C-alpha cells in the first residue's frame, strides 16, 4: 500500500475500504483527515441529489402494473382464440368453403325473396344494447349541452336530462344515424335510442318487448322513435314517454 493507491481508492470509494486500507489510514492523522473529508464529500453529493419523490409513486406503480397486466392478459386470451380458430379454419377449409357457399346461396335466395325483412324492432334494439354493453358501465356524467349538440344534428333538443347521462354517441341503425344514450336511474342504467322515424327501423313489431335480462318500450313519434331499454322490472313505459315528451323538435 502506498500513498498514491491510498488516495486513489479513498477518493473513489471512501465508504468501501478494506481492512488493509483502513489500517493504513489510521496510521497517520493526515490520512485520517483525508478519509473523513472524502466520506463527507460523498455524503454531500448524496444530499445534493436527494430530491423529493412524487407523492403516491409506489401506489401508482402497483396500480399501473395491475392494470397493464390485466390488459395484457385479455389481449393474450383474445389472440390465442384467434390463433385457435385460424388453425381450425385451415384444417376444415374445404368443408368450410363448401358449407359457406351453400349458406350464401340459400341466404341470397331467401334475402331476395323476402325483400329485406326487418327484424322486429325490439330484437333489433336489444341486439344493439348487447353489442355495446360497455356503454352501460360508464360513470362520468355528460352535460345537457353535450347531449344537445348531438341531438341537434337530428333536429331535436332536450330541456333537461332524464337523470345522470353517462354515455352519448351517434349510432348506426340500418344506415340511419341515431342517438344512443345511457342514463343512470333508480333501476340501473337505462339505454335510450332516438332514431328519426323516416327510416322506419322500429316500425315493425309491438311497442313492448323483453328478454331474460332487459325490458324495452318503443314510443313511436312523428319525427323520431324513442326506444328505451332497462333492466327487467323497471317501469320502462314511464321513462320512455317522459323522454319522448321532453324532446322538442325544431
Amino acid at each position, binding site marked *: 500500500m502506498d500513498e498514491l493507491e491510498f488516495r486513489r481508492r479513498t477518493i473513489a470509494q471512501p465508504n468501501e475500504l478494506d481492512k488493509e486500507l483502513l489500517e493504513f489510514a489510521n496510521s497517520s492523522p493526515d490520512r485520517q483527515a483525508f478519509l473523513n473529508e472524502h466520506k463527507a464529500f460523498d455524503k454531500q453529493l448524496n444530499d445534493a441529489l436527494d430530491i423529493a419523490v*412524487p407523492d403516491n409513486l409506489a401506489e401508482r406503480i402497483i396500480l399501473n402494473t395491475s392494470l397493464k397486466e390485466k390488459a395484457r392478459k385479455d389481449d393474450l386470451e383474445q389472440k390465442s382464440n384467434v390463433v385457435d380458430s385460424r388453425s381450425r379454419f385451415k384444417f376444415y377449409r374445404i368443408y368450410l368453403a363448401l358449407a359457406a357457399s351453400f349458406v350464401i346461396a340459400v341466404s341470397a335466395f331467401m334475402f331476395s325473396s323476402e325483400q329485406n325483412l326487418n327484424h322486429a324492432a325490439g330484437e333489433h334494439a336489444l341486439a344493439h344494447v348487447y353489442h355495446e354493453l360497455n356503454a352501460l358501465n360508464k360513470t362520468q356524467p355528460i352535460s345537457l349541452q353535450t347531449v344537445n349538440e348531438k341531438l341537434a344534428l337530428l333536429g331535436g333538443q332536450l330541456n333537461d336530462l332524464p337523470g345522470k347521462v353517462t354515455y352519448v354517441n351517434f349510432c348506426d341503425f340500418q344506415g340511419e344515424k341515431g342517438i344512443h344514450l345511457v342514463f343512470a336511474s333508480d333501476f340501473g342504467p337505462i339505454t335510450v335510442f332516438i332514431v328519426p322515424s323516416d327510416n322506419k327501423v322500429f316500425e315493425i313489431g309491438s311497442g313492448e318487448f323483453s328478454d331474460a335480462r332487459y325490458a324495452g318500450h318503443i314510443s313511436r313519434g312523428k319525427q323520431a322513435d324513442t326506444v328505451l331499454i332497462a333492466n327487467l322490472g323497471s317501469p320502462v313505459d314511464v321513462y320512455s314517454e317522459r323522454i319522448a315528451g321532453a324532446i322538442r323538435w325544431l
Partner: protein
Amino acid sequence: MFGNKKSNDQVLLNMAEKQQRYEALVHVYHKELYRFAYWLCNDPNIADDLVQETFLRAWRSLDSLIDQKAAKPWLLTILRRENARRFERKQFDYSDVDNDTLVDQTSHSLDDEMEQTVIQRQISLLADEYKEPLLLQVVMGCSGDEIASILDLNKNTVMTRLFRAKNQLKEALSRDDEQLKGASK
C-alpha cells in the same frame, strides 16, 4: 373435484404471495430508483415513466428473481435497459429540461440550496461514463462489485471512473466556489 379446488387455492395463494413480494419490492426501492432515473435523464416525467416501466417488467419476470439481495442490481439493470430503449425509439416525445430549472426541494438554508444546485449542475455535466457509476454509488448505495456487474465493467475500471468523476467534480466545485467568492467581493 376437491383436488381441483385445492390446486386452485394453491394458485391463488401463490398469486397473493407474488403480489405481496412485489409490493414490498416497490416500497423498498421506488424512491432510490426514481432519484437515480431522475439524475440519469434530468426530467421528472421521464424518470416517472422509467420507474413505472421498470417495475412493470420486474413484475413480469419476478419469478426469475430468486435471491432478494440481488433485487437492487436486478432492478437497476432493467431500468438502464429501459432507458437505453428510450434512445432506440424516436426520442421526440420529451424535451430536454434546461439544467437551470432543476429544483431541489429538500434543502433548508439558502446557502445549502445554492451549493446543492451547483453540485447538481456539475453532476449533470459529467460524461455518462462517469455519471452513471457515480449515481449508482452515491444515489443507489451500490458497492464497487455491484456497479461493475450492472455496467458490465471490471472492478478496476469502475474505481478509475469513480475516481475521475469525483476529481472532476471537486475541481469544478472549487472553481465555482472561487467565482462565487469573487462575485461577493
